[in-house]
C-alpha cells in the first residue's frame, strides 16, 4: 500500500512458515534482514513471545535483526505459532501466524511520525518527533516539546512547504528534507484516498545514504467508510479478531468482552457504558459492553442476545433499553426469539422505557418467560446483582 502510493519502504517478503522465511532470505540477497512478527498491534519490538501451551517465554522481542540463515531460521521458529504479548495486546497477547522478512538498511537516525484526524481542528494532523523507535507515549509525557505538529486545510492533504518546514523542525536538511516532504505529502494523499483513521510510522528512518524510509507502520481504517472500500475485506485477518466480536460487528452490533458475570444488552453507547458503571456501583461486574445500536431489527437483537448467552461466564443478564430510534417491541420480540432458540437458565432483568414501551412490556408479559421487570436503571442493576448473589 505504501509502495503504491510513493511512500518508500524496504523490500520484504511475507511468509507463513520457516521454509518461507528461509527462501525470503535467499530472495533478499542473504545480507542483514529484519524478521518481524505480524499482528494487528503495536509495540512488537519490545514484546515477548510465549509458548501458547505452557506460557513459557520463547524469546524477548517480536522484531529481530538476523545476520545469517541460521539466525533467520531460529527467529522464525521462535515467532511463528507462538503468542506475542505487547503493551497494546493486553496480557493475553496475540498468536503470530504471519512473518515479514525485510531487507536491512544502514540507519543514520530513527524518527516517529503519525497522521490522524484532529477532532478539534477538523483537519488532518501530523505529529513527528526526532525520537523514533521508542514509545511515543513516553516522549509525550517526558518531553512534549519534542513533538512537532502540522495541520491540513480541511480534508485537503499537506503542501510541500508545510512538510519541508516540519522536516526542518526535525533537523532534516537537503536531500533528506526533500525526501521527507515527498513522503508526508504522499502519505496524506494515501490517508484520504484510503479513508484511514490513523497511520503511525515508527520508526521512520533516515538512511546513511540520506533517503527517508518507513521501516514499520500501523494503519487503521475508518470502519464507517467500508461501503466505498470493498478491497478491505482482503486485508482483514479474521484470526486476529475475537470470533465473537467479529460476529457482533458483522451483525452491526458493538460488543466488547469484559471479565465479569453480568451480561448486558443496551441501546446507545453512552447508556451502555453507564449501565456498566451502575452494575459496578451495586457490587456486580459487567461481562460485556454491548450496544445494539440505533435502527436494529429483530434478527440483530436475537444475535445480540445469543452472543451474551454463549459467554460461559455469564450468570445473569440485564437488558436496559431506553427507546428512541430503537423500539421496545422489537427488543421484546428479539429476546423471545433468542430464548426460544437457546433456552434461558440464568436470571434475566429487563428494563424498558421510551418508544413503544407499552407494546414491549406487553409482549414480554404475555410470553410466559420468567423475566424480572425493572422500571429504572438503578432498580434493574440492583435486581440483577441480588439475583446472582442470592442464587435465586
Amino acid at each position, binding site marked *: 500500500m505504501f509502495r503504491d502510493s510513493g511512500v518508500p519502504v524496504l523490500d520484504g517478503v511475507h511468509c507463513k512458515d520457516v521454509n518461507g522465511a528461509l527462501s525470503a532470505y535467499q530472495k533478499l540477497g542473504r545480507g542483514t534482514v529484519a524478521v518481524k512478527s505480524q499482528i494487528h498491534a503495536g509495540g512488537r519490538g519490545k514484546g515477548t513471545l510465549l509458548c501458547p501451551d505452557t506460557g513459557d517465554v520463547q524469546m524477548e522481542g517480536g522484531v529481530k535483526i538476523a545476520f545469517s540463515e541460521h539466525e533467520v531460521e531460529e527467529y522464525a521458529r521462535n515467532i511463528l505459532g507462538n503468542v506475542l504479548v505487547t503493551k497494546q495486546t493486553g496480557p493475553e497477547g496475540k498468536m503470530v501466524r504471519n512473518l515479514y522478512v525485510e531487507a536491512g538498511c544502514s540507519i543514520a537516525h530513527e524518527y516517529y511520525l503519525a497522521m490522524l484526524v484532529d477532532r478539534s481542528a477538523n483537519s488532518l494532523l501530523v505529529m513527528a518527533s526526532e525520537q523514533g523507535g521508542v514509545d511515543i507515549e513516553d516522549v509525550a509525557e517526558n518531553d512534549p516539546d519534542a513533538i512537532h505538529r502540522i495541520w491540513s486545510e480541511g480534508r485537503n492533504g499537506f503542501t510541500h512547504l508545510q512538510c519541508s518546514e516540519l522536516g526542518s523542525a526535525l533537523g532534516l536538511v537537503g536531500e533528506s528534507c526533500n525526501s521527507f516532504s515527498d513522503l508526508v505529502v504522499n502519505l496524506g494523499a494515501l490517508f484520504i484516498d484510503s479513508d484511514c483513521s490513523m497511520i503511525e510510522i515508527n520508526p521512520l528512518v533516515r538512511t546513511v545514504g540520506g533517503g527517508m524510509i518507513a521501516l514499520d507502520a500501523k494503519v487503521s481504517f*475508518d470502519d464507517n467508510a467500508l461501503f466505498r472500500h470493498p478491497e478491505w475485506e482482503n486485508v482483514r485477518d479474521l484470526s486476529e479478531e475475537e470470533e465473537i466480536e467479529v460476529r457482533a460487528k458483522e451483525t452491526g452490533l458493538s460488543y466488547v468482552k469484559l471479565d465479569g458475570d453480568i451480561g448486558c444488552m443496551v441501546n446507545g453507547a453512552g447508556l451502555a457504558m453507564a449501565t456498566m458503571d451502575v452494575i459496578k456501583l451495586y457490587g456486580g461486574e459487567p461481562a460485556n459492553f454491548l450496544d445494539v445500536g440505533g435502527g436494529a431489527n429483530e434478527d440483530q437483537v436475537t444475535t445480540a442476545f445469543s452472543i451474551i448467552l454463549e459467554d460461559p461466564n455469564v450468570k445473569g443478564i440485564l437488558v436496559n433499553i431506553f427507546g428512541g430510534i430503537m423500539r421496545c417491541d422489537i427488543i421484546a420480540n428479539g429476546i423471545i426469539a433468542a430464548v426460544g432458540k437457546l433456552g434461558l437458565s440464568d436470571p434475566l432483568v429487563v428494563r424498558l422505557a421510551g418508544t413503544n414501551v407499552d407494546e414491549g412490556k406487553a409482549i414480554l408479559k404475555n410470553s410466559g418467560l420468567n423475566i424480572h421487570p425493572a422500571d429504572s436503571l438503578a432498580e434493574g442493576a440492583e435486581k440483577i446483582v441480588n439475583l446472582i448473589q442470592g442464587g435465586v
Partner: protein
Amino acid sequence: MSIWVGEDAKVLIQGVTGRQGTFHGSKMVEYGTDIVGGVTPGKGGMTVSLHDRMVPVYNSMEEAVGETMAEVSVIYVPPPYAGAAIKEAASAFQSVRGGGLVVCITEGIPILDMVDVVNAMASYPDVRLIGPNCPGIITPGSNGGSKIGIMPGHIHRKGRIGIVSKSGTLTYEAVAQTTGIGEGQSTCIGIGGDPVQGTGFIDCLEAFESDPQTEAIVLIGEIGGSAEEEAAEWISANGTKPVVGFVAGSTAPPGKRMGHAGAIISGGKGTAAEKISAFRSAGIHVADDPSVIGQVLADALIEAGLRDS
C-alpha cells in the same frame, strides 16, 4: 423562550420516504412538530402520510425551503449520502432565507466526509448543524411542542432545565429524571458522539446561559476527546446558572477504540476520572450514578434558591 428551536418551528425531513424518515416523521407529527414537507431526490410531487398529516415531497432542499419557508431540516439519509445532504440543506437555508438549523440523525458517516462538511459550514455562517449520529433537539411546548429527531416525546415536559448530551439514550435518562422530580425542560440537545461534529457543548452552554427560560443545565459527557474538560473551563469562566454533570464510562476498559496517537493529542485527557475532576473543579454538581441525576439536580436547585424542597 428556548434555544434554536421554537415550539412552532417549521420543519422539513430529508429522506422522508425512507423507513426511518417515515417512522420518525409520524412520531414527530404526533408529538406536535410542524412538519411542512420532505425531500427525496426523484420523488418530488409525491405526498407522504405522517400520522394524521399529508406532507408534500420535494426534489431538492432549495425548492422545499422556497415553497415552505421552513427554518429547520432533519436528516434521515443513509451514511453514503448524508454529508451531501447536510451541505445541500445548509446552502439552501443560507441562500433562500438567510439561515436555519440542520439536524443530522444519521449514524456511520465516514469521518473524512464530516471533516469536509464541518469545513464547508464556514460558508454558511447563519446555519447551525447539530449532529451527526445524534438524537436531535426538542423544545417541549405548552401543548405539544417541537420534537426534531428520534427521542421519545412523551417523557418531556416544558420547563426550565436545559439538557445537553453526547449520548442519545442517556439524554432520555436525564430527561425522564428531571420530569420525575417535577421539573421540565427548556430545550434538550443531543450533540452526538462522533469525533467530528457540528454544534458542541460550549455552543449549547452559551445559548442556555443567555436563554431566560433556562435556569439550570444538565451536561452529560462520556470518555474520549476533551470536550468535557473544555466545557468545564467555559463554565468556570462564564457560567452563572447551576450545572449538573455526569460522565459515562468510569468502568470502561482503557485502550478500546481509543487510538494510540489519539491518546497523545488529548495529552492525558479522555478518562472519566479526569473529566469528572474537571467538572468538580468548575463547580459542576456531579452525579456519580446516572440514576441520581434527578436527585442531584433537585439538590442543586435548592442550593441555588430556585426550589424549596
